[in-house]
């Protein structure tokens, strides 16, 4: 029973990270109908920025917030400068740009910070409060932080005029323009937010997997799996999917002997393929009916 609880909570911690990645991916998907393959590498790059800030003696939480802010601006700039020129020129062009971004961020990180593995600190105290024993201190903190971030994003989209305008722009760009919403900027804002949320995922996962340019590869896959499982058309679903994938992956790795930790990643791939085959809209997704 203890093992089960431990593995579930460890899974929830990873799930929170996947949920952040899934949410970032879904936000851009909703506005553009494309998966941003560079989301993981952008998060990795943000984590390196935090690393540099910490290295220069900035206190952890300031570095955390600064890295988020820098990532937000970076995300906006990436959309304005690199993505916007190919917007609406066809799926292939946009996907190639996303893959190009992935390669660029990956090599830039390697060039600036080298490919050697670096430790990244965990900001959480060494002991879990309330005498809880079934979850480690970092996992406990990660669950807390990701929940706070996800709640903040939810409140932003639910209750602020700008959040409402962003949803409107993603749902119906033509109508959005007709009420005076600057749709292009809403898209850029979406990229900024996605980058900032991704940064949180990166900084939370780095103490576990260690910082190196390829650290987000697997995480992004799990994020995609979470987004698809929950429903790529529904941000709340994607978040739930992220948590489910985290728990599922951990429990399967623990209890199914032949999978262990080596085959864990294939759980994500099996999940992606099964969702696409059996329920393409995901568990909580909207089925879009198009009239022809």
């Amino acid at each position, binding site marked *: 029973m203890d093992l089960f609880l431990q593995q579930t909570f460890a899974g929830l911690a990873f799930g929170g990270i996947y949920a952040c990645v899934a949410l970032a991916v879904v936000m851009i998907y909703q506005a553009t109908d494309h998966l941003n393959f560079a989301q993981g590498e952008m998060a990795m790059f943000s984590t390196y920025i935090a690393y540099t800030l910490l290295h220069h003696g900035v206190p952890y939480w300031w570095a955390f917030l600064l890295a988020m802010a820098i990532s937000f601006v970076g995300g906006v700039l990436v959309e304005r400068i690199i993505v916007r020129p190919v917007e609406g020129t066809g799926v292939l062009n946009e996907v190639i740009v996303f893959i190009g971004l992935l390669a660029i961020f990956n090599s830039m990180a390697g060039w600036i910070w080298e490919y050697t593995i670096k430790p990244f600190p965990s900001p959480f105290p060494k002991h879990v409060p309330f005498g809880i024993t079934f979850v480690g201190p970092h996992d406990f903190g990660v669950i807390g932080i990701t929940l706070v971030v996800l709640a903040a994003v939810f409140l932003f989209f639910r209750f602020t005029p700008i959040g409402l305008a962003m949803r*409107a722009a993603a749902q*119906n760009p033509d109508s959005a323009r007709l009420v005076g*919403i*600057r749709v292009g900027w809403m898209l850029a804002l979406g990229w900024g937010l996605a980058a900032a949320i991704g940064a949180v995922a990166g900084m939370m996962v780095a103490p576990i997997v260690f910082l190196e340019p390829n650290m987000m590869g697997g995480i992004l896959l799990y994020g995609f799996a979470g987004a698809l499982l929950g429903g790529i058309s529904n941000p709340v679903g994607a978040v739930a999917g992220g948590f489910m994938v985290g728990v599922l992956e951990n429990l399967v790795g623990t209890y199914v002997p032949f999978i262990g930790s080596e085959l864990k990643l294939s759980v994500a791939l099996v999940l992606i393929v099964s969702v696409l085959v059996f329920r393409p809209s995901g568990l909580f997704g909207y089925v879009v009916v198009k009239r022809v």
Partner: protein
Amino acid sequence: MALLEVSNLEAFYGQTQVLRGLSFKLEEGSVTTILGANGAGKTTTLRAICAMVRTAGELVFDGRRIGGKATESIVRRGIAHVPEGRGTFVRLSAEQNLRLGAYARRDAAGVEQDLERVYGYFPRLKERRGQQAGTLSGGEQQMLAVGRALMMRPRLMLLDEPSFGLAPLLTEELFRILGAISRERQVSMLVVEQNASLALAIADHAYLLETGRIVMSGSAHEIGKDESVRKAYLGY
């Protein structure tokens, strides 16, 4: 001075030219209707004013040129477009749809006032304010589109088939409301309408469009009496 002055307006879908040099004026507080067969370019005329198609020619709104400006900048000057197909934000609530109409406004008190006014015109929308807009009936979504346009507190409304999907009684009610709004609040309107006799009834001016050109213009009263117009568009 005319509120909207259109000269030599051309519009294109890809290589196809749809409008071939329209020129007309809309007076402040007046209602104008465009008649014409399917494919004559009525919808395109409305879309061209809001820069939703590629255009050439001169557009002057309230003394300032709006040709070549982006849609969102044009509508912020006070032009509300009720689009063909209603343009509902289907996954937002009815009230959120209405509030989005006031997105560019900064007078919070005026927005609340206008929201109540819209609910006054369309009590059905008040009943369904919290409901997801995509689940509203066609007629309710049409009211929502008109309501959203009113929330912009516009000076000019472009109405594309406002009666689309409405029951006959509601259609009459809607046109009565539109007439009242135009009179009381000095809102100019440019109406494209399947039901030509209804449109002519509230209009001051009318234009007849054929394959992208204006072939007849005059007061709504005169046009309504014209033999050929009556046969082709009014059915008697």
